[in-house]
């Protein structure tokens, strides 16, 4: 009897070992190649492949267009129909993943070439990592790249300045404001210095309005305000990148000054602002009870849907005196279009990008999604886009919060601003953030 048990037991062990061995063998096949310690960089990625100039012939084959903007699906469907009409031998399928899953799941499939012949990335860490891994095919030889505003597509360049991707969407990550409310408070033009901005907030408050609706309880949106708060305080335009590189600190004077200015703004935010999320604030703004919504132009469409009838403009706090102000506002160029080096069908994917780069088609996208685009000569018919189009020519800075490639470091720096509004002293908040920066830089 015991012998029988021992026989089964041995077999089971062998089965288990077999399974583990099989698993090990398979897992070794699907993962990265592991190099030994000190054998050189592991993050070098593949050498960039540069695509030859797009041919004039019609596109053929299937394009999988991987992105995260489910809200744009209908507009893309319209554009796809036009593309397929002009290229009957081609099809375009949208592979949409929620933005949360995009990094963790969809990108692995894009990397494997199973989806995303044409694909997109967020500006910042995601684009940097994908480019480093060699997923973006070089677009430098493509004539349609000239149809973009050169300044606005720098975010799609590799460190070598080669154009790898095309940032397509242009958003203004700075507060939006109710022009009627400003007018009723006797403010006819945007303040040009910090005192003027605080005075504006006072006037709005005296009218019974919440001067600034700020979603301090929602890191993704509360962090947008930091862009315009630091744009004129930063000693260099790359100060956030410098913090991550270790050449500047969160405890430096310029950032402490920014934190003190957050402290000054605290009475002008809605009560308990550190616990408020953006949805109720959009409602507050849409109902005319708040002067500004400190998120970005990407919320103009949302407040319109909530019934806002007043004209909506863009405003950035100028945190220095008028003569020292370098920038009037903030923009971000994201949704970086690219052609996948993995898999096949690159020619059709390139033609799809060329199609999207056409001003007429870019206009369909822009007006249909209420977002500006980085393509030149687009005719904006959407009233809000038209109204704020002059910002395309203003002196704006590429949103500095996305200079952080390490999201923990970015979160720590932005959390310092929230902590100050919540009552922590600027020095303490900065020190706490710097401690995280020091640990995460290692």
């Amino acid at each position, binding site marked *: 009897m015991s012998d029988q048990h021992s026989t089964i037991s041995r077999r089971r062990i062998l089965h288990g070992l077999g399974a583990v061995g099989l698993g090990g063998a*398979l897992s070794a096949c699907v993962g990265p*190649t592991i190099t030994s310690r000190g054998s050189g960089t592991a*993050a070098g990625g593949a050498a960039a492949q540069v695509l030859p100039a797009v041919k004039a012939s019609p596109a053929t084959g299937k394009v999988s267009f991987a992105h995260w903007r489910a809200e744009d699906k209908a507009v893309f469907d319209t554009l796809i129909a036009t593309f397929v009409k002009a290229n009957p031998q081609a099809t375009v399928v949208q592979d949409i993943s929620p933005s949360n899953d995009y990094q963790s799941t969809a990108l*692995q499939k894009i990397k494997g070439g199973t989806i995303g012949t044409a694909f997109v990335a967020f500006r910042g860490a995601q684009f940097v990592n994908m480019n480093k891994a060699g997923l973006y095919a070089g677009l430098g030889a493509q004539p349609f790249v000239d149809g973009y505003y050169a300044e606005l597509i720098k975010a799609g360049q590799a460190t070598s300045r080669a154009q790898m991707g095309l940032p397509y969407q242009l958003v203004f990550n700075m507060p939006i404001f109710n022009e009627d409310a400003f007018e009723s408070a006797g403010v006819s033009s945007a303040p040009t210095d910090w005192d003027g901005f605080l005075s504006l907030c006072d006037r709005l408050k005296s009218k019974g309005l919440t001067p600034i609706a700020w979603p301090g309880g929602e890191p993704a949106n509360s962090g947008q305000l930091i862009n315009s708060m630091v744009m004129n305080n930063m000693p260099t335009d790359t100060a956030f990148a410098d913090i991550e590189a270790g050449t500047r600190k969160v405890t430096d004077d310029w950032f402490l000054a920014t934190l003190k200015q957050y402290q000054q703004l605290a009475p002008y935010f809605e009560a308990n602002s550190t616990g408020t999320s953006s949805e109720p604030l959009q409602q507050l703004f849409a109902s005319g009870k708040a002067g500004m919504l400190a998120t970005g132009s990407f919320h103009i469409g949302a407040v319109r849907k909530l019934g806002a009838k007043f004209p909506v403009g863009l405003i950035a706090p100028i945190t220095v005196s008028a003569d020292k102000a370098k920038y009037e506002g903030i923009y971000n160029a994201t949704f970086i279009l690219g052609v996948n080096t993995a898999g096949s069908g690159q020619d059709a994917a390139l033609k799809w990008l060329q199609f999207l780069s056409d001003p007429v088609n870019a206009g369909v996208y822009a007006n249909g999604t209420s977002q500006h685009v980085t393509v030149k000569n687009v005719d904006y018919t959407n009233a809000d886009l038209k109204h704020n189009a002059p910002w395309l020519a203003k002196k704006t800075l590429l949103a500095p919060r996305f200079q952080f490639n390490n*999201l923990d470091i970015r979160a720590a720096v932005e959390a310092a601003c929230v902590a100050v509004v919540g009552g922590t002293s600027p020095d303490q908040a900065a020190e706490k953030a710097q401690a995280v920066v020091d640990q995460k830089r290692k």
Partner: protein
Amino acid sequence: MSTTLKPASPPEAPTLPTPEKPGGRNPMAAHPALWLFPVPALVLYVTFFVIPTIQGVIYSVTDWDGFSPTAQFVGLDNFVTIFTSDDLFRNALSNNIKFMLVVVVFQTIFSLVLAVFLSKNSKSSVALRSVFFFPTILSSVSVAFIWKFVYDPNFGLINSVLEAVGLGRFQSAFLGNDNQAIYWVALTQVWFHVGQMMIIFIAGLQQIPQELYESAETDGASRWQQFRHITLPMVAPATAIVMAYTTVQSFKAFDLILGLGGNPPKSSLDILSTRIYSGFANSQFGYAAAESLVFMALIAAITWIQRRAVKASNPDA
């Protein structure tokens, strides 16, 4: 000539195949085709459990960023960093322990109390059980959105009610208060799952023989004494299940935290599962894999300690 009569032998019974006796031939050996039956299950198990686990272990000793075709072997560096110089991990662990303690204590007590009052199969009890069980069938995201509006400091239900009844001084920023935020989320988790745990307790309570209560009552035991000396020991196995399940659930309350706190959540709401997710989102697959292994070991250790504690307090459990 003599004839010897022999007793008539009974007719031979037809022989039927008999089951293998212990010690006899193994049916798997007799019928090799039987080996094929577990293959589909084995393939699924290896694909979805064994391979990811092995991959997790392999990645945990590398600096893989999730994109690059190569990764460098870093030995135990990731684990050393986790234990010695990662305040964010320690903060997440601390939040998680606070969260777990509140959830385990309150969810176990509330669900037991509800179960005691609703264990009879009367119409009203059954109806009330459905009411308390209802939140369990909601998705975590729906629950998060409901409570996001309940906790909103300006437009939320709680502060509005406090204001309306003249208790405005007790208003809170709730999730905006870094010292309280994790406890408010823990209360949401209790509300979310208390009905589910109540059902487990009801199943346990209904197994207790009524005779025990009858004889205790005859002996003059009070209601509290009956609860203390009969109900509590007899539901110990159910308590062990509830506590173990609740503990694991507390460590994996990922969706509720992200729903309430956004992605990524701020540090006052960061728990281990969201921290690991942030690692993957931050292209630190190797480091996040190491955090995952620590996380797994932690859950296993806590569950083991709990089971030992429950067994020690009630050897029959």
